[in-house]
């Protein structure tokens, strides 16, 4: 008998940590992982509400969020590889000039 | 008190201990079987000195590996270097817990299922364990801080991730026929005789061969064992491992083989179903005998293929996975769903 609000507070905490990571970290890959953490936090909210209202569509939304996250991860990592090839660095602070 | 939760915990603990013991012995004797069979195919004897027919050879191997010097690398990333073999062998041993070996038996009035965990999503659990199994290899190669290990690990993870797709899709045909992800349901839907099993009766012959090819690639066995090929990359991702850690990778590989054989038996060959005849005790032991026979057939097939086929080159391997197996698997799903939809 766990109250619904416990799950939602956990989701909020994970989202907050994801935002902190996104704003604080300097390595591109870690930045990207913070985005994935935020997406996971939202997934948890969806599933918690689906269990509360007994609606299976919550699970379907999670399915779609995962698909979009997978597509975004693939393209984002390809971009990171391309950036690394030209700038030779993974630090976002160094990728600050339009032309090398 | 059959329904008390302590009974459940006790039964599960006993089942796990028994299965673990049986599995580890099976792994040890699969190694013996492999050396004997490959030896005979290559017109030589294989191990004969240690015990009759070399039957104590696995014991000797075990003692040797235990007593070997455990080389610890100074340049390796220690936490992952030590954790990777543990992860590999742990996952390999976990995946056997959802595989049903027989019907329920009754021990002193308590019904005991011959399956450690009868979950609704057993097939997805197996796919999940396969997906996480990539980490054992990838992290082992990276943490060893050596170029051969890293190359072997990168190749192995790319190969495993590519063939996972065909593995999953080849099982979808059977899922469409059965309508449930539970392995027990899948077995119960198949009948006693070979023409009632999913391979022939369900029309999943192509899916069976796709599953076999994908499983060979997932367990990194010949003809897909470039990541650990001896003449290519020294020893691939387990180059820098010695003694017990190497033994753990070795055990993980053979345990994965046994698991894949069990899953193929359950999904395609009808599990423990087979002609049942004879008096009472024989009748009870026959399903287990059929299950073990079918698993043994798969292990023999694995070893036979190892002794016969040459190794794929890496680009041939990736081309085969993406350009041949994946379209075939998708076509199989389409045709099966079409036939089922038209049939109902």
């Amino acid at each position: 008998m766990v109250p619904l609000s416990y799950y939602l507070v956990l989701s909020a905490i994970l989202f907050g940590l994801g935002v902190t990571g996104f704003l604080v970290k300097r390595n591109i890959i870690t930045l990207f992982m913070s985005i994935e953490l935020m997406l996971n936090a939202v997934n948890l909210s969806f599933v918690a509400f689906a269990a509360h209202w007994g609606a299976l569509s919550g699970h379907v939304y999670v399915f779609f969020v995962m698909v979009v996250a997978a597509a975004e991860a693939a393209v984002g990592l390809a971009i990171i590889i391309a950036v690394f090839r030209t700038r030779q660095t993974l630090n976002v602070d160094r990728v600050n000039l339009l032309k090398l | 008190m059959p329904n008390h939760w302590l009974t459940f915990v006790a039964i599960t603990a006993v089942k796990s201990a028994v299965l673990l013991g049986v599995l580890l012995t099976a792994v040890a004797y699969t190694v013996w079987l492999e050396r004997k069979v490959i030896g005979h195919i290559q017109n030589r004897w294989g191990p004969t000195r240690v015990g009759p027919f070399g039957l104590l050879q696995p014991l000797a191997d075990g003692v040797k590996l235990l007593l070997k010097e455990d080389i610890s690398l100074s340049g390796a990333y220690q936490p992952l270097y030590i954790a990777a073999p543990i992860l590999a062998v742990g996952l390999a041993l976990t995946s056997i817990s959802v595989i049903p070996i027989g019907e329920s038996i009754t021990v002193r009035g308590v019904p005991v299922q011959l399956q450690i965990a009868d979950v609704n999503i057993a097939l997805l659990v197996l796919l999940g364990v396969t997906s996480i199994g990539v980490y054992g290899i990838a992290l082992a190669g990276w943490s060893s801080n050596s170029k051969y290990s890293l190359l072997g690990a990168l190749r192995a993870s790319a190969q495993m991730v590519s063939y996972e797709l065909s593995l999953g899709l080849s099982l979808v045909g059977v899922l469409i026929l059965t309508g449930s992800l539970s392995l027990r349901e899948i077995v119960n839907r198949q009948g006693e005789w070979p023409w009632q099993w999913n391979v022939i009766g369900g029309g999943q012959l192509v899916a069976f061969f796709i599953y076999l090819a994908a499983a060979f690639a997932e367990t990194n066995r010949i003809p897909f064992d470039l990541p650990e090929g001896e003449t290519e990359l020294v020893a691939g991702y387990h180059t820098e491992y010695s003694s017990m850690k190497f033994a753990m990778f070795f055990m993980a590989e053979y345990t994965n083989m046994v698991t894949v054989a069990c899953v193929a038996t359950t999904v395609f060959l009808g599990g423990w179903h087979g002609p049942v005849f004879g008096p009472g005790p024989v009748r009870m032991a026959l399903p287990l005998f059929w299950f073990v026979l079918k698993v043994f057939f798969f292990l023999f097939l694995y070893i036979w293929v190892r002794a016969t086929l040459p190794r794929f080159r890496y680009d041939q391997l990736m081309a085969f996975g993406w350009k041949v197996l994946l379209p075939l698997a998708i076509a199989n799903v389409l045709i099966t769903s079409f036939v089922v939809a038209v049939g109902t």
Partner: protein
Amino acid sequence: MLHQILFFVFAAVCVAGALNLLVQRHPINSALSLIVVMGSLAVLYLLLGAEFVAAIQVIVYAGAIMVLFIFVIMLLNAGEEEHSGGSRVAAVLGYPAVALLVGLTAWAVVRSSGSANLKLGGFVGSTEGIGYLVFRGFLLPFEVTSVLILIAIMGAVVLARKED
């Protein structure tokens, strides 16, 4: 009671993993912490009766997307993160601001959800039901995400190609 123990244990593992992701300097440690977070989230989904979602969380998120991340970290040989110029004022104002934001969200949630309780096993999401929903009610989003994945594959192949 078992429900509460399991929830608190795995929620603690989630938060510890997320904190570790922030604290660690080497990206491989952050990636492994994120895998741990995803694994414990899968357990929480099982507690909420979402068995299919838990399975695909492990298969897709922890087993494929994070493998991609680890692959890229291994390929690019990412080293430890360097300290670039960070503003002290931003740190002093920023962390409390995020904490305030999370606290506000938590307070709003607790106030509005009242005493809504979730029973263990009260709602079990069947795979068959999800299948019906995806292929009937949500067919258009399904087809659109298929096209999205195709675009992502083409984009990834083009972007990561070497310039010849």
